[in-house]
């Protein structure tokens, strides 16, 4: 199980690196085509925007752990283990609950976007935006798992990114 998760995390990392590299290359291509070759490519900007959206939500879903998030942790880190547990439980219930409650509406919005296509590449926007669903589900699973960990006494063990 541990092995599998490690393997999956490494693959998630590969995807994020691939996306960022693609974004960077597309941008360079855009600049070269516009300023050096004088015949701007239309699709590069769109490719950048799509990979940016994917980097943000793919990364937030699988790669960014609690320590790497922007957070305010003075109260948390100065609290006792017991209080920390309560803090973590409240936060986890609120986050998992809110994302779970809004999941159907989020799905509706994203599947509704199939009526629109990106203007140059013609990629359906529900595909582009689907990464947000992946992100929402990953958040629900992660914070759900934390609630379970708190109740089974496993809280405080080093958390995995994935």
């Amino acid at each position: 199980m541990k092995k599998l998760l490690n393997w999956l995390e490494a693959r998630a990392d590969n995807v994020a690196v691939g996306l960022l590299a693609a974004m960077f290359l597309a941008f360079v291509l855009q600049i070269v085509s516009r300023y050096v070759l004088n015949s701007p490519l239309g699709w590069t900007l769109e490719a950048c925007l799509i990979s940016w959206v994917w980097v943000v939500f793919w990364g937030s879903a699988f790669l960014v752990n609690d320590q790497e998030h922007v957070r305010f942790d003075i109260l948390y880190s100065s609290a006792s283990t017991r209080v920390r547990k309560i803090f973590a439980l409240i936060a986890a219930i609120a986050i998992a609950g809110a994302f779970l409650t809004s999941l159907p509406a989020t799905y509706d919005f994203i599947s509704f976007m199939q009526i629109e296509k990106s203007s140059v590449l013609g990629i359906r926007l529900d595909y582009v935006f689907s990464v947000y669903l992946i992100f929402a589900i990953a958040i629900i699973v992660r914070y759900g798992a934390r609630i379970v960990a708190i109740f089974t006494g496993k809280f405080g063990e080093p958390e995995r990114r994935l």
Partner: protein
Amino acid sequence: MSSEFLICIAILFGLAAIGAPIALSMIVGAIAYLALKGQDLGLASEQILQGLYNSFILLAVPLFIVAANIMNAGTISDRLLAFCVALVGRFRGGLGHVNVIASLIFSGMSGSAIADAAGIGKIIIQMMTREGRYSPGFAAAITAASATIGPIIPPSIPMVMYALVSDTSIGYLFLGGIVPGLVMAGVLMTLLVFIAKRRNFVVEEPTPLRALPRLTVNAFPALLMPVILLFGIYGGATTPTEAAAVAAAYAFILAAFFYRALSFRSIYDILSSSARSSAAVGLVIGGALIFNYIVASENIPSAVAGAMRSIELSPVAFLLMINVLLLALGCVLDATTILLVIVPLFIPAARELGIDLVHFGVVVVVNTMIGLITPPYGILLFVINATTRVPLRSMIQEIFPFLGVLIVALLAITFIPELVLFLPQQFGYR
């Protein structure tokens, strides 16, 4: 202001206070607001996705992050440092001056104070504390203080964020930051001269002048970077976002081919850590997008503007009030949150009072950068603590004089708009 909005705020700050990620707290607060208002819960994802997908200017953020990480990994930082040591290392307290000058030059490339502190700052703290010449607390404090200059001199990630929420020109904002950045460097170095005399700091073995040409040649391609960036943007050749990509590409070519300091593995690691930082920052921006949508639909900014009008606040008093407020918030909140969530509330009021929005932007960015080193919550102090293990307590003891002079610089920038606006006006700003 509706009761639903107050609940949304309570949830946001409640969750953030107990240590939940700020971005997720904003999204949860927004979802609660939509649920209480009986609105479509899908609106949260719609605002976040459309906002991120449609703003071209935000692409500069991940590109500047990549550029900064390449420079830190590819010995570009080290070369710049050697150049600065040769230049100003010969004075009393020389390494302190090196620290400021290095930040000044490095900031012309990276756009992120944290990258500055973690990269070049780490090396220079090691140099300063070697053989006990400077106390670790002092070395860390001057490093943190000078790192705040990073995002004032262009390029600048915080200014990209301000441009996003205020609709001001990122090009003019960048130009407006140059003189204030020099002013900040000036006050820090003046303070250093005094401290060096009082504490009788060592005078370094001066680097022989005949080594200077070689070190300059060595650092020259890196020194060229700010020139390329500024020329690209103000020569009208590229947009600021494209300039960010050019910066990253240039850093990559320098590090990989010219200095031969990058392996395939290190390129992968650079991209991997950049992807993580980009995702974390992007998510906060996403959270701020939905939060700002709610703030706007509650008409909060115009209510604030109305309140300012009714108490007949003068522009000077308004700016002073904003500075005090943001500095206080900077003690407990991070710069991204302040710029994306708090500052938009005051933009219409600033506009109504006739305050120039480029001037206002530079003032709030300088202010939030000072907030990065104000205890107890100062991200730069934490980053230096994490990378160098200098205890927070000893850093905080030494930081106050630096904080003091930076606040003096902030006041100067606030009350003398020309410091900010002179350069943009030379390039056709109004």
